[in-house]
């Protein structure tokens, strides 16, 4: 049975007509055309599909769409505001913390979730918080550097 499910996607209310058992990843990519979130394994092992649900990083391939009714979802497309890149995005560019770019949206969203939960993480905390996100091109060290730089930038902004 099709049902209408509503939630906030990148600050806007959206409704989809679905069975409810579809994965959030499928709904975001196929029904809502936000293809920045990637399919990497469909098993929650790689983190390419990471998005934020109510500010917590989650694997969208493992979440049923009926479980996000009324919640706030943020994908990579919703991260920059008013045409200006988010500090994490800027920092990923500055550190060139990517190669093929396929894991990058998931990395950035996981990092954002991590920094919302802990604005001043140590290097060790960043590593353990990012551990389940995989990058085959081998940008791990640069990603950690980028997250450290972004944390500093974000904290500066909060103080102002």
């Amino acid at each position: 049975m099709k049902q209408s499910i509503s939630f906030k996607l990148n600050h806007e209310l959206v409704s989809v007509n679905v069975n409810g058992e579809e994965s959030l990843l499928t709904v975001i990519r196929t029904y809502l055309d936000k293809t920045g979130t990637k399919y990497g394994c469909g098993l929650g092992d790689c983190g390419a599909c990471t998005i934020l649900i109510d500010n917590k990083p989650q694997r969208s391939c493992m979440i049923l769409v009926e479980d996000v009714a009324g919640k706030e979802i943020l994908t990579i497309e919703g991260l920059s505001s008013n045409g200006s890149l988010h500090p994490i995005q800027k920092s990923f560019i500055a550190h060139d913390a990517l190669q093929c770019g396929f894991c990058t949206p998931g990395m950035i969203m996981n990092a954002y979730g991590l920094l919302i939960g802990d604005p001043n993480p140590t290097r060790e905390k960043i590593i353990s918080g990012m551990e389940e996100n995989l990058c085959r091109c081998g940008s791990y060290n640069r990603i950690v550097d980028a997250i450290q730089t972004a944390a500093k930038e974000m904290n500066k902004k909060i103080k102002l």
Partner: protein
Amino acid sequence: MKPDKITELHFDHVDKPISSDRRNFLKKLGGGIIVVFSIGELSLLKSWGQNTSEDLLNFNAYLRVKEDGRVDCYTGKIEMGQGVTTSLAQVLAEELEVSVYSIDMIMGDTELCPYDAGTWGSLTTRFTDPVLRAAAAEAREILIDLAAEHFGVSDEMLDVINGTVFVKNDPSKNITYAALTKGKKIVQTLTKKPELKKPKDFKIIGKPVISLDAEAKVTGTAKYSGDIKLPGMVYATVVRPKVFGSKKLQVDSSKLSEFEGVELVEDGNLVAVVHQDPEIANKAANKVKITWEEPVAKADNETIFQFLDKNIKENKVFEEEGNLKAGRDVSETLIEANYFDGYKAHASIETHSATCYFQDDKLTMWASSQTPFGTREQLAKTFDMPLEKVHLKQIFIGGGFGGKIYNQQAIEAAKIAKFSSKPVQLVWSRREEFMYDRFRTAALIKTVSGVDSNGKLKLWEFDIYCAGTRGTKLFYGIPNNRTRIFNDDNVHPFGTGAWRAPGNNSTTFARESHIETTAFATGIDALEFRLDNLKNENMSATLKLAAETFGWERKKQEGHGYGIALGEDAGTTVAIIAEVHVDRTTGKVQPIRVVCAQDMGQLVNPHGAKLQTEGGITMGLGYALYEDIAFNGGRMESRNFKNYEIARFSNTPKIECVFIDNMDSKPQGGGEPAIICVGGAIANAVFDACGARVNRMPVTPQRILEALRHG
């Protein structure tokens, strides 16, 4: 003899007439200043191993200076994360005298870009650079001629800075490329050998430039083959057997009636279900029952090495010098060992994907492929269509590493689209990826070394099973040596193919482990032993740079070990020194630090070279410590990232990359070389740390503990 420097390139047949089909091609490109020629005109590239002589004569556009002052750069290469979007833009910008940020890369589009056999073998910088530089230098000369006409002065009176032509001594007289190009369409073939810049005059080549495609990738706007959405498109799921190589006997699709709107596609061994919702296609495909005839398993991941040894007898001598018996006689110590390396997956985070549609009699496709032109040929052949009726479009590739040159998914997607008469998207699941990836072959290497009482190597016997000879030409001076290759491509239980520096990982692991074992037997320090026995000066210099950067003499902490490995790949010499910590009770290895020194000739983008080196080392750590395809015949037991571990954040050590300063020479390969030394350096560092000599990749805790038990 091949010229050693780009500036020594020479050209012939430079003024071929333009034929009518070529004029049609040019119409597609629009206005501006377009430089065209065939690679055949570049004499150096006649020996370009990967293209056929016909390809070399293909007439191609290489760049177009547009009326808005931006420049389109055309190349048949693709971007899969290796950074050529940036490095190719750099060489073009250098010769054209424009900002690197004014260049748009048009890549891998089979209707617009020059033919290219494939993006592999770390060839892009080595072979595309000279062509683009020549085209850009030619375009610069055309623009200067136009400016000379505009100002009524001679070419010598003019200078270009950042896309603007100035009259020397009167900079108030200036005109931009955009203004010079306005309203014009000038198609220029090469008329003479273009004047290329000397390295001392470089402003952009050799400078670090951040990846030009980074912004598209951090905002999620970069498009990959699975991100294309077409009107009326359906998603396909292929019904797969459990065992690789199974043959379809019978299909029962009666349960499909439970799903509204699904369609069954059956074309020979290919059975698929399509639906406009990918999850319904997937669920429905699971309900299609196929009876398969499964091949009998002949080997598993433990017995495979014996199997290869037993079944491959034919061999060829690759290199031979001196006399092996004499080598044995003069050696004081003989050391014999076998080295083993399992199958490895490419494991790109993007699985094989393709989106395509037929319109009239033409097929258009976006595919995650390292070989768009090869895909075009495969598709044309599959459907018996002319090449020009197949169009592969530009798209980002989410990692390749040699795995995306076979294009099975592209053919499947096109067959399904043809059958269903609908636009189709096919994205392989991770499980399909772990079955239809063309894995790097397992390898066995039998090695004998002999060393005299002065610590000089006198004998080297190297029998390679299934790893190829790439990079195995001896750079150690050993008077009596023989390298043989034993191979049979049909012996493997599933598809195999190229994997970042094919085979050179296995052979370098074997050679460098054995050199270290030999050094240890003589009691000579591993660094000193190598320097004493190397015959290649470049290699010695590279090793010294690595040792200096690493601090080879530094005191080791408790439980830590250092390991060296040397290798050669794609024209680049590599020396890696790794430091690891080994927990003797658990066998767990923690990589601490990796130093990599390389001589890769001219560094076009030193920053990009560093990224590639770091990436190769990180990927290599996975292969050295964790990655091993588990299988029983064609039944894959490694099916996802839980049972095929790759390197992660926590096991990536500090990585330092240093390069020999060699700007005056040709650029060499950068994408692959570093990875070849990781296995050997890690195995040697583990031995140094705890005394466990593990002759089999990956060096797992279990193998370390076993080696410690058996001494």
